[in-house]
């Protein structure tokens, strides 16, 4: 698999810059990740990162809120500001001719945001509205509540925020979070697209060289929620969410763990899709996927079904989880491999996908992984390896959250 030269450099202050030139596109994409995600939020102030991400673009450098947005729009930038557990990520995709002007603007947003006090209320209200909407979207809410129960705090806290905490997210809390977390050490910038890597490197060096180091804040590990739980919800469906411990992306067994998730609930020939949806017609939506933090991971399973058929859905789903150890077909693994390999090829057609993939690789592994290398790692998987993995990591410590009109029998 061809792949043009990916370049990674690090400025003396720690900023990492990863660039992947792509010749056959007209666009460029930027993923700028600063280590200001929700795990660094002050106690009892969940939602600080979310509000800060809203506030960041409300004026920066010598532009007020409106002027900044207007300039970003004039460049035709498709942008988003998102919050994760580790990072606030500023993403931009645009015609590559406009990249230099866009980088100038993003340097102001990251280094010289106004964070105006009179904009805190509207920014916070926006986040509050978003949280109220999640209350109306049971599938999203179920997965978010599952997370609170399967990961220790603060990794279990939702990056979206918590309604009860929002009133404590004040201007001093926001500026404090900014000062602690907007730092060069830990920041990763990824650029993919039709760009001259040397020119991008020079510009980034010029823009970010004076950014001063800040000490990395400590994180205190707290408790997780209850392992088996039900949330009363007045909905027509019951939402079932299950988590099982797994390995993180950096672990040598990651690809085995990922493939097991794929066999269980990855494509439409996966076991869950076949047994729960195709054979029994219990669900419209049922799937499994792998979720990773830096040092731990989870296999997550979701199924949404009408309340009367929820118990059967749960029973079938749990049985499929347990049954994995009894054997996996070569064909099942081959299909996972094929899906992964074609996804790798198609990733090369999207500058945004490549920018976020190389940023993610750097964060988890401290280096850039070529598509060839991933290809090789997937190719070398065998069924024996998957079964070994399942014996070393049997399905245990399951977290089961149900949400709907009636609780279900978990059968433990």
């Amino acid at each position, binding site marked *: 698999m061809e792949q043009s030269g990916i370049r990674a450099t690090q400025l003396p202050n720690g900023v990492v810059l990863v660039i992947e030139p792509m010749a*056959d596109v007209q*666009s460029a994409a930027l993923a700028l990740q600063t280590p200001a995600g929700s795990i660094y939020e002050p106690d009892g102030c969940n939602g600080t990162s979310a509000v800060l991400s809203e506030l960041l673009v409300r004026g920066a450098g010598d532009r007020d809120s*409106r002027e900044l947005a*207007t300039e*970003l*729009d*004039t*460049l*035709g*930038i*498709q942008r988003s500001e998102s919050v994760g557990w580790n990072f606030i990520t500023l993403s931009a*995709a*645009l015609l590559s001719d406009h990249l230099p002007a866009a980088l100038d603007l993003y340097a102001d947003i990251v280094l010289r945001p106004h964070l105006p006090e009179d904009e805190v*209320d*509207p920014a*916070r*209200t*926006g986040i*509050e*509205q*978003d949280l*109220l*909407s999640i209350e*109306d*979207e*049971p*599938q999203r809410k179920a997965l978010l509540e599952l997370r609170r129960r399967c990961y220790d705090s603060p990794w279990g806290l939702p990056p979206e925020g918590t309604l009860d905490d929002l009133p404590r997210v004040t201007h001093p809390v926001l500026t404090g979070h900014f000062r602690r977390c907007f730092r060069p050490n830990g920041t990763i910038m990824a650029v993919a697209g039709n760009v001259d890597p040397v020119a991008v490197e020079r510009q980034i060096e010029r823009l970010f060289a004076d950014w001063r180091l800040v000490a990395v804040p400590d994180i205190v590990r707290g408790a997780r929620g209850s392992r088996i739980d039900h949330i009363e919800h007045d*909905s*027509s*469906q019951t939402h079932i969410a299950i988590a099982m411990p797994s390995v993180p992306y950096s672990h040598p067994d990651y690809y085995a763990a990922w493939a097991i998730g794929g066999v269980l609930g990855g*494509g*439409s*020939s996966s076991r869950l*899709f*076949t047994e729960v*949806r*195709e054979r*029994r*017609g*219990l*669900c*419209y*939506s049922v799937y499994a996927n792998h979720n990773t933090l830096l040092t731990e991971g989870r296999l997550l399973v979701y199924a*949404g*079904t*009408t309340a009367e058929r929820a118990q059967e859905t749960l029973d079938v789903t749990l049985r499929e989880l347990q049954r994995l150890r009894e054997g996996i077909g070569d*064909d099942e693994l081959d*299909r996972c491999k*094929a*899906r*992964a*390999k*074609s*996804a790798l*090829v*198609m990733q*090369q*057609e999207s*500058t*945004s996908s490549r920018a976020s993939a190389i940023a993610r690789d750097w964060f988890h592994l401290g280096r850039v992984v070529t598509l060839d290398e991933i290809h090789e790692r997937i190719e070398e998987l065998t069924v024996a390896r998957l079964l070994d993995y399942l014996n070393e990591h049997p399905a245990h410590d399951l977290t089961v959250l149900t949400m709907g009109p009636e609780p279900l029998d978990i059968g433990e």
Partner: protein
Amino acid sequence: MHFDHVTLENGLTIIAETNPRAHSAAVGFFVRTGSRDETPEISGVSHFLEHMAFKGNGRFTADDVNRIFDEVGARYNASTSEETTLFYAAVIPEYVGRTFELLAALLYPSLRDDDFETEKQVILEEIGMYEDMPAYVANEHAMRTHFSGHPLGMSILGPAEVIRTLTSEQMRSYHRRRYCAGNITLAGTGRIELAELVEFARTHCGHWPGGTDDRDTARPPRAGGTQLVVRPQSQQQHVVMMAAGPPASSPLRFAAELVAIIIGDGQGSRLYWELVDPGHVESADLSFHDFDGCGAWVTYFCCRPDEAQANLARVREMYAAVMRDGVEDDELERAGNKAASRIVLQSERPIGRLSSLGANWVYRREYRSVRDDLQSIAAVTRDDIRQLLNEFPLPAETIVTVGPLEEFGGN
């Protein structure tokens, strides 16, 4: 990048835009059929049939279909709208042939009775899932109210009670009527040549029955009105407003796309600055939908119930100002740049390019390159926008809301 097209003896049209430098190829069958081509007794049959397509034919079982698509690593799916049922897949070049054979098999499924009954349950689950999404419910009620008495008001998923009583014979009869080759366009993008596609189609689609089936494209009556769907358990109030817009055939559609960006884009639009930025709403947008013979402006916002009435007033005031004063030159320039980025970014993937290639052909029998679209966007003037707004004013004819409010609207 080059384009070509051909029509087989049975009426199947094949179009291809080849890009030899792409990494993948995308192939899609656009069937000119959807909820507007149904009658109330079979409401939801187009979408149900789309599901049944994956249950296989005499050659492939349902398990084969799911398994083989995964074996070739295809990114594939199907969708049903008011007017089009689309089956598509993107794959790496070595698997195009195998994928094509399977994709073509989807269009003439066996429709076995036992599969029909199992899949009926899945459809009912899907209806249940969407019932839990208030924004979806608001949109569906808005379409029904706005297009009252017109086929575009039909629900895509269908009412649960109709799905429960639907028979496989009704579905077969609908399939015979709508899935004739003349009603279908096969499109390919990326690393695929027309000649290759024609050869595949001759082998796997050449035996499909010919003919076409027309649709009623009469202009909808001016219905409209206000409707409240009271949901006390809902946290937020969801509001959809609709007005008539230009049809798919209209050259005004480019101006309409730009108005939607200027007034109602997710960022930097007038709705953004008036409603989202100050925190009055969680989200607000204006979009333009074009159909066969008519079009629609659709405004959506979602906010705290106690703010909904005030937000409605803000939107109305804003639309009155747009009608009076039009838009500014710099707004038009920014919207043009945004539209251009979107067109280019989307077209960089064959799977992204497929939908606009297919839509141009299905609706207008024309090929438009990315460059053509960029030029049309750049050519839109303030006068075009004035003309568009005179013909298709923004202020709502239909207002639908879902949430706890028991009173809403008025003037």
